C-alpha cells in the first residue's frame, strides 16, 4: 500500500482518535445558532466513527466559517466565498478523505454562489453545511442574499427590495443529489441530516437555519420554532423530485425541515477516470521512463 492511502493505512484494531473539540473555544456570541450546528457536525462524525485525521473541514469567511478551528480534524479556513472550490480540490487530491465544507449564507449564496451551482452539478462527493442566518453578522449587520423582502438592515435602512435566494430550490435546479434543510434549534434532527449527508455518495447539501441573535431580530429561534415542520412526519418522499420542488417553495407560515430530495447519480470522482487508480496523492508522478512522449513533437 502506498503511503498516500494514509487514512486507510492504520493497522486494524488501532484506536484512532475520533473527532472532538479542539483547544480553541468557539468565539460566537452566546446563544448563536452556530453552536447547534457544530454540535450536530461533531455528533454526526462521531456516530460514523470517522477518525479525526481523515476528516477535512473547509470554510470561507464569516462568523460561521471559523468553525473548523473548533474541532480536532484537519481544516482549511479559506478566503471569502471559496470554500467549495478548495473543498473540491482537496477531494480530487485525495478522495480517501471525508470533506465537509461549512460557511454562512453570505459566503455560500452571495460571493460564492457561482461555485455552489457548479459543485452541485458536478455531484462532487462532499458535504456542504451552511449556517444560514439571513444576515451578515461578522460585518455587523448588512443584508444577505437570504434576507427577507422588507427586512431593514444597516445596508438596507428602508428594507430589502431584492427577492431572497431559496437555497433548497437552487440546489434542486443545480443537480445536488442530497438536499436538506436543518434548524440549529433541533440538533438531533440536524445531526441525522448531516450524518446522512456524509454517508451520501455525491454532493450533499444541508441548508441550516442558524439564527443570529445579535443582528437579525426577525429570523429568531422563535421565528423558526413557530414555523418548522418535519418533512418526514408529513410523509414526504425524498425520491420524488416533483414533490421535492413543491415543498421547496414553501416558506412562510410553514417552513419544512428535513430531507427534500435524494438521488443516486455517479459522482465526479467516479466519472474522473484518472481517480479510478486510487487517490491522486498516492499515484506515481513525473515522466521518468516516458521518453517516447517526445515523439509527438517530432
Amino acid at each position, binding site marked *: 500500500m502506498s*503511503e498516500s492511502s*494514509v*487514512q486507510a493505512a*492504520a493497522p486494524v484494531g488501532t484506536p*484512532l482518535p475520533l473527532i472532538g473539540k479542539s*483547544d*480553541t473555544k468557539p*468565539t460566537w456570541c452566546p446563544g448563536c445558532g452556530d453552536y447547534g450546528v457544530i454540535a450536530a457536525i461533531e455528533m454526526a462524525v462521531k456516530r460514523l466513527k470517522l477518525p479525526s*485525521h*481523515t476528516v*477535512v473541514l*473547509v470554510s470561507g*469567511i464569516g462568523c460561521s466559517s*471559523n468553525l*473548523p*478551528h473548533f474541532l480536532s*480534524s*484537519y*481544516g*482549511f*479556513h*479559506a*478566503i471569502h*466565498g*471559496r470554500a467549495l*472550490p*478548495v*473543498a*473540491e*480540490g*482537496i*477531494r*480530487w*487530491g*485525495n478522495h*480517501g*478523505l471525508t470533506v465537509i465544507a461549512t460557511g454562512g449564507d453570505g459566503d455560500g449564496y452571495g460571493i460564492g454562489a*457561482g*461555485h455552489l*451551482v*457548479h459543485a452541485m452539478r458536478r455531484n462532487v462527493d462532499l458535504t456542504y453545511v451552511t449556517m444560514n442566518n439571513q444576515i451578515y453578522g461578522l460585518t455587523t449587520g448588512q443584508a444577505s442574499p437570504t434576507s427577507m423582502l422588507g427586512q431593514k438592515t444597516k445596508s438596507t435602512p428602508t428594507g430589502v427590495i431584492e427577492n431572497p435566494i431559496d437555497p433548497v430550490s437552487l440546489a434542486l435546479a443545480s443537480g445536488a443529489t442530497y438536499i436538506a434543510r436543518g434548524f440549529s434549534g433541533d440538533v438531533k434532527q440536524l445531526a441525522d441530516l448531516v450524518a446522512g449527508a456524509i454517508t451520501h455518495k455525491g454532493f450533499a447539501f444541508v441548508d441550516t437555519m442558524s439564527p443570529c441573535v445579535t443582528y437579525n431580530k426577525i429570523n429568531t429561534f422563535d421565528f423558526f420554532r413557530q414555523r418548522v415542520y418535519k418533512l418526514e412526519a408529513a410523509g414526504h418522499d425524498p425520491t420524488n423530485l416533483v414533490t421535492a420542488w413543491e415543498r421547496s417553495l414553501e416558506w412562510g407560515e410553514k417552513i419544512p425541515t428535513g430531507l427534500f430530495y435524494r438521488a443516486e447519480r455517479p459522482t465526479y470522482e467516479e466519472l*474522473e*477516470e*484518472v481517480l479510478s*487508480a486510487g487517490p*491522486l*496523492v498516492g*499515484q*506515481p*508522478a*513525473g*515522466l*521518468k*521512463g*516516458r*521518453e517516447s*512522449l*517526445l515523439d509527438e*513533437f*517530432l
Partner: protein
Amino acid sequence: MQELSIRAGGAAGDGIASVGEAFSRSLSRMGLNLFGLNAYQSVIRGGHVWFQARASDAPVHSQGDRVDLLYALDRQTVEVHAPLLAPGGIVVFDPEKFSVAEGDLPKGVDAFPVPTLQLARKYTTQPILQNAAGIGATAFLAGIPLETVQKVLADSFGKKKGEIADWNLGASGDGYRYAEQHHAPSPHAVRPSGPAKLLLTGNEAIALGAAAAGVKFLAQYPMTPASSVMHWMAAHSHDLGIVVKQAEDELAAINMAIGASYAGVRSMTATSGGGFALMVEALGMAGMTETPLVVVEAQRAGPSTGLPTKTEQGDLNLMLGAGQGEFPRAILAPSNALEAYRAAVEAVRLAEAWQTPILLASDLHLSENYMTIDRSEVSFDVPIPSLYQVEANGNDYKRYLYTPSGVSPRALPGQPGLQFIAGSDEHDEKGHLISDVRSGLPHWVAERTKMMDKRMHKLDGLRHDAPPVLVEGAANPSLTLLAWGSTVGAVRDAMVQLTAAGIPTRLVYPRTVYPLDTATLVPLLTGPEPKLLVEANFSGQLGRLLRSETSIDLPDKLLKYDGEPFYPTEIVAKVREVLNRVRK
C-alpha cells in the same frame, strides 16, 4: 550558414495555421532550428492571419526580419507582406484567385503563379485542398524534399487515413512537381542539417515541464493565450494520470489548485492577465497558508480585454503586486521553449521547497509560437521527493513552526496525529487564529510580527534558489541590453546582427524577475558602457523594479506595446541610435 523564412497568409478559416505547421514541421524534421510565428485575430472566420516559419542551421531566437517565400492565399497577403520580401524572394499565388503585377512587389522579387485550385480539382471541388498544392509548390522552392513534406501531411491526418489524406498527398505532389517544372528553387533553399528536432510551443513546453516535475492536478479556465496548457494536459490526462479540471472561472481554478496542493498533490493553474487579476486574492491565500502552487501567467496585450491575440509584457507590475498585504513569491520568466520547459520544472520544485506561490511568466509570443529543441536537451530525470516529510510525535506538531529558512514541516491531511488548520487569517505556529480574540494583545502583536518575518524570510532563500541571471555576449561590450521573457529572443537575434556589424553587445537577462538577484545585477549594469532596456510594455516595468531595488535607472528604453513582437532590426536600430548619441 543557411537560413530561410517562409510566410503564409490568408483569411481566418483558410487553414493558415495548418499550412504554417506543415512548413515548420518539415523544416524541424530536416534538423534545422526554427521559430514559427502564428499571427491571428480574435475571430473564427474572416480577418487576416499569417504564419512565418524561420529556419536556420544556426540558432534561431525569433521570427527574424526577412521573408524569402510568401505563399499568399489572398490579395491582402500580398499587400501586407510583400514589402518584407528580400531580393530573390518569391510570391506563390493562384492566378485564378487574384493577380499580382510586377509593380506590386519590391525589386528583385518574383511572382510565381501556381494553379493550386486547378491542381486540387483533380481530386475534389473542396477549395481547402488548394493548400496541399500550395504547400507542395512552396516546399519545392524552399528545398524541402517531397517525401519530407508528404510525411508531415500524412502524419497530420494521424490514423484517419482514407481519401482525404490521399488527396492531400496527391495534390502536394502535383504542386511540388509543378514548381519543379516552372521555377528555380529559392536562392535561400535549405538542405537537411541533422537529426529531427522537437517542435513545440512555449505552452506545450510548460505543460511538459510541469508534468515532468510531478504536477498531477491542473485547474484552468479557458483564456488566450494560456488555453493550450490545458489542451496538452487534457489530451494526456488519462495517459499520464493527471487530473485536468476546467473550472467555472479563474477564482475556482486557483482555489481548486490550492485545495489539491493542500491534499498533497503538486498542482498548477494557468491563465492570462484578466484571469490572473481574478486569482489575486487566492494567490495571497496560498502565501498565507504556505501552500505550494504554480501559476502560469501567459500575458497578452492589455489593459482589460485588450488585444486578446497579441503579445505584451504588461503584467509584471500586476504579478509583483498581486494580493493584499505581503507574502513571498517568485516570478520566473523563460525566453524560449527549452527555458520554458526548465522553468516549469523549477517552478514546481521551488513551490514545494518554499511552500509559496511561484509565478511562471509567459506571454503570447512564447506561449503560442513554435520553437525547436534538441531532443537530447530534454531530460525527464527530474527528482520528485515524497511530500510526506513529518510524522506524528506526541501532540506538539506545529505546521507553521518558526525555522531559520522560514519553511516549516508540512503535514498532509490523512496523516494521523498531525491535524492542523490552514488559515487565511493570521495564525500562530500551530495554525490557531490570532486575528480575532487575540489580535491587538501584546503577546500576539509580537507573534504576528514573528509570523510575517518567518514567511517573508523565504524571499532570501528564493533569491538564491531560483534560476540565476544569464549573461550572454561580449565581455567588453559597447552596450549592455537588459531584457526579460520572450523579448530576449529578438534581442539575441539583434546581437548576432550587431556582432556581424562590428558592434559587440552584452545581454543581461534575469530569468527570475522577482526576487531580483541584485548582487549579480548591480555590477553588470553599472559599467561605463551605455545600457538599453528592452521591454514589451508602455512604462518599462522591469526598469522600474530595477530602480526600486537597486537605484539603478536605465534612461534608454526600447518599449513596444503595439501588440506585435519585437523584430531584431528594431533593436539593432535603437542600439545604433543610442551609440550614435553617446559618441557625439
